[in-house]
């Protein structure tokens, strides 16, 4: 009886020890694999520690386009088989460089181009008519971002031929950046079309003619305004990148 008990105990000890040895072997297999990647598992000692767990989860997450993983010590055997199998070389390749996921939480908002202008704050009325005016959109550095002719028909601006400048507009470069373009309207106001999408030759009028409806509270000036004053009551406009431009209409007749 005692002999049988001893045998059972010995068998149980061997089983536990054997399982543990196998487990350590699997962990070691994972650790050795990871040491050949950029994911640091800590020392290759066969012990499943936090570093090993983090490293293998990071690798497998990266290999699965950042799907979160929950690999535990109990998964070591399967993972070792995976690493030693057909997928091993691909995982090794993936493990050579780290990928950091994009986790943008901030609202980037509506994208505006360099030539977008928000005309929401125009303070003008509808009861003004001129056959011909000249307009400018002026960069704070003093050069004209756009210029051309327009008609005001009962408060509606009808843009005629005009030219647009593109590019950085930094000092010394403008002569290289002349380009012709058109203006367009959206529900938020007047915008410069991305300059290269629509070309308007000098002296030509793009089709269709573009319109801008002036605000209700516009006060018609007693005479055409000077260049300095402009015809619009409030005429500073900010593009999508924070540059404030000046929109002037003058020489109306």
């Amino acid at each position, binding site marked *: 009886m005692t002999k049988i008990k001893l045998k059972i105990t010995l068998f149980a000890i061997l089983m536990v020890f054997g399982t543990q040895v196998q487990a350590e072997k699997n962990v070691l297999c994972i650790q050795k694999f990871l040491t050949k990647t950029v994911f640091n598992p800590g020392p290759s000692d066969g012990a499943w520690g936090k570093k090993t767990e983090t490293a293998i989860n990071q690798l497998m997450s990266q290999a699965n386009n950042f799907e979160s993983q929950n690999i535990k010590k109990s998964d070591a055997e399967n993972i070792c088989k995976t690493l030693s199998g057909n997928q091993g070389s691909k995982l090794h390749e993936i493990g050579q460089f780290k990928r*950091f996921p994009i986790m943008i939480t901030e609202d980037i908002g509506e994208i505006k*181009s360099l030539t977008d202008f928000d005309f929401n704050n125009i303070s003008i009325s509808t009861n003004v008519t001129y056959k011909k005016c000249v307009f400018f959109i002026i960069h704070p550095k003093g050069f004209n971002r756009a210029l051309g002719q327009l008609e005001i028909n009962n408060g509606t601006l009808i843009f005629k031929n005009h030219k647009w400048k593109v590019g950085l507009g930094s000092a010394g470069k403008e002569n290289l950046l002349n380009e012709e373009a058109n203006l367009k309207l959206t529900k938020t106001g007047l915008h410069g079309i991305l300059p290269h999408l629509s070309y308007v030759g000098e002296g030509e009028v793009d089709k269709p003619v573009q319109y801008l409806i002036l605000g209700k509270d516009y006060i018609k000036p007693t005479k055409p305004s000077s260049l300095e004053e402009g015809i619009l009551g409030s005429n500073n406009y900010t593009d999508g990148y924070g540059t404030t431009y000046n929109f002037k209409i003058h020489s109306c007749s």
Partner: protein
Amino acid sequence: MISRRHFLSIATPALALSGYPVHGFTKEPIEGRIIVIMLQGGMDGLLAIPPIGDDNLFKQRKALVASNPLKLNPLFGIHPNFRNFSKMLKSNEASIVHATSFPYTGRSHFEGQNVAQSGSKLPFSTNTGWLGRAMEFAKITGKALSLDAPLLIRGAPEFDNFYPANIEKTRSPQTALIDLIKETHDGDVMIAIDKLSRGSMSRPSRLRARDPLSLATKAGESMRELNGPRVAVLTIPEFDDHSSIGSTTGHHPELFTLLDNVFYNLKIALKEQWDNTIVLTTTEFGRTVQENGSAGTDHGYGSVGLLAGGLINKSSVVANWPGLASKDLYEKRDLFATIDYRSVCSACIEAAFGLDHDFIIEKVFEDKKIARVYEHIFG
């Protein structure tokens, strides 16, 4: 208008039928597009994509960090002027490779640009460019050039187009460059060059400004055509800001805005072909980690690469971040480059042209040690 899916459904069998075997293809040849934006002068990658989670960033360059970078993840941010690109990142249409460079540490523009275009380890060791060689191996004959047939695409078998299509009236006519092309090419290439020269000079009224925004749109519009060019090269110069480089605003940030709009214009102009496209930036080197006495930065080593296009599946920042502590810097002054940028170029060729990685690094770059990062960018 033929949809992309319909195009693929009819184009693929046609390609298979034309069927001459091309050694090196890992899969069926695909109709991908590659657009390279060369950022000349050396872009400051730390200003563009600041590693805001690295405390040493603020110790090393207090004045040269934008006050309001957009947070991408705990380690990296992006300059606020990259608004379109940020949106592409958010919608899994863009990725970033950081702490990267072509294998060149000499800090000379002349040599660095040559290495970035030739893909060779040694400057001036070849007369052709990595992209041109890749096109030759992929049997791609149609392409768009930026305006001067840069070294980058020399080596391709046929020239289809110049942008803008007017050599005679370009701002600085590159007749010397055309002479160089004539010296280094013969046969069909020479015939194509002559044809182009004559054709472009016969259309002087079509002269347009040579700014990158216009070129981006014109290139995109051409490349979206069914049989349109599959390669375009654009150049944005003036990144060499030794003084007054800027932080939130300033010259480098203005260039970021311009680059951001180039990405945007390409996407808009390419329309459905955006799905088959990869756009990547190149620059000859990065800039010093610390600012100099003139509020600028000097020639450095590691920088950043920006990629966008529908061929990207999942956005990320790819980087083996080396750190910014003085001990971690290259020669105690530059961001260390831990990724050979030719790996990125190889991955783009693999994605757009379908060539096998091993074939690319052996035949195009002649360097079998270039690692594969295809899975990191396109996987």
